[in-house]
């Protein structure tokens, strides 16, 4: 430790007093030197005030909540398979009954059946014509024709075709 120069603490001695503690030599000097004692006290109190003011400023700053950032939602790696599983279950729940229902329905007429309908046999056509004639006669007996009621004349052949809808054999 350097000796006290010019009757006051050196910079190193002052720093030592401020940082750690005064050495016995510095302590002895401080007891006797009002100027050094006052300067050390001024330094110490200024640092205390500054420290408290800085802490007060810091406390006045808006606080933050880091909980959400620190604990993010658990990883969603399970989410994609789960979504697919739910989708598959919904499709199965709707699709399977629909398929079963569809299987119970009579099959759509095949091309052969349609052809059969379109190409009725002669006997079937004759039977249809007989049925239509009988209906026509029944209508003709009980209900007067609108054409006759309003005085409209049509040829018997045309009338027969329009009203009865007979098919040509």
């Amino acid at each position, binding site marked *: 430790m350097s000796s006290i120069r010019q009757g006051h603490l050196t910079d190193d001695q002052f720093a030592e007093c401020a940082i750690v503690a005064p050495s016995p030599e510095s302590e002895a000097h401080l007891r006797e030197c009002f100027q050094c004692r006052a300067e050390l006290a001024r330094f110490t109190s200024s640092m205390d*005030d500054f420290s408290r003011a800085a802490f007060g400023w810091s406390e006045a700053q808006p606080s933050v909540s880091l909980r959400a950032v620190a604990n993010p939602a658990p990883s969603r790696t399970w989410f994609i398979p789960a979504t697919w599983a739910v989708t598959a279950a919904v499709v199965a729940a709707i699709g399977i009954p629909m398929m079963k229902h569809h299987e119970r329905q009579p099959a759509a007429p095949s091309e052969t059946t349609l052809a059969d309908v379109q190409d009725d046999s002669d006997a079937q056509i004759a039977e249809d014509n007989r049925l239509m004639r009988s209906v026509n006669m029944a209508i003709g007996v009980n209900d007067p024709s609108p054409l006759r009621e309003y005085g409209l004349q049509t040829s018997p052949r045309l009338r027969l075709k329009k009203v009865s809808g007979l098919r040509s054999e």
Partner: protein
Amino acid sequence: MTASIIHQERQVNAISELDDIDSLVAVYWPRVLRYVTFSIGDSDLAQTITQDCFLKAYKGRESFRGECAVSTWLIGIANNLIRDQLRLKKFQFWRKASATSLDITEMASFLPSDESSPEARLLVRERTEQVKAALELLSVNQRRVFLLRFFEGLNIEEIAETTGMPVNTVKTHLYRGITAIRASLGEKA
């Protein structure tokens, strides 16, 4: 009780304390924010660094061995983050701009009011601003060391450990800081 048992006990207490990040923030945020802000001189960047510090501490809480106080551990993490920032180009402006001031005005207005006279309060206000102005003239590393001593109350060895600086470098920084503050206070004393 041996030192290892003390460490173990402190570790258990600290780990349970570290488990609740919001409580951790509530207790230690002002202290860490103060240190970071006045070290780097940029309150916006300090907010970010402080936030990163707490997140890093929370995620690495299992690594806390209880060998020091939680606050010292947090300040150590903050120091590493500041050092990372110092290495980045974007931080160069602060080191070069000697005239740049902290964006905090009226420091003394944050002092708790006491029963002292208006004259005494005025003197405190003046000295607080003088310390702040003197700190701004120091380098970031000088400020860090100075604040660790006078904000956090760490001794030279603890400062050397937490900053990764040699003990002699820490002493040099401290002496320079003290000399600067003394000069600032002495000019208007």
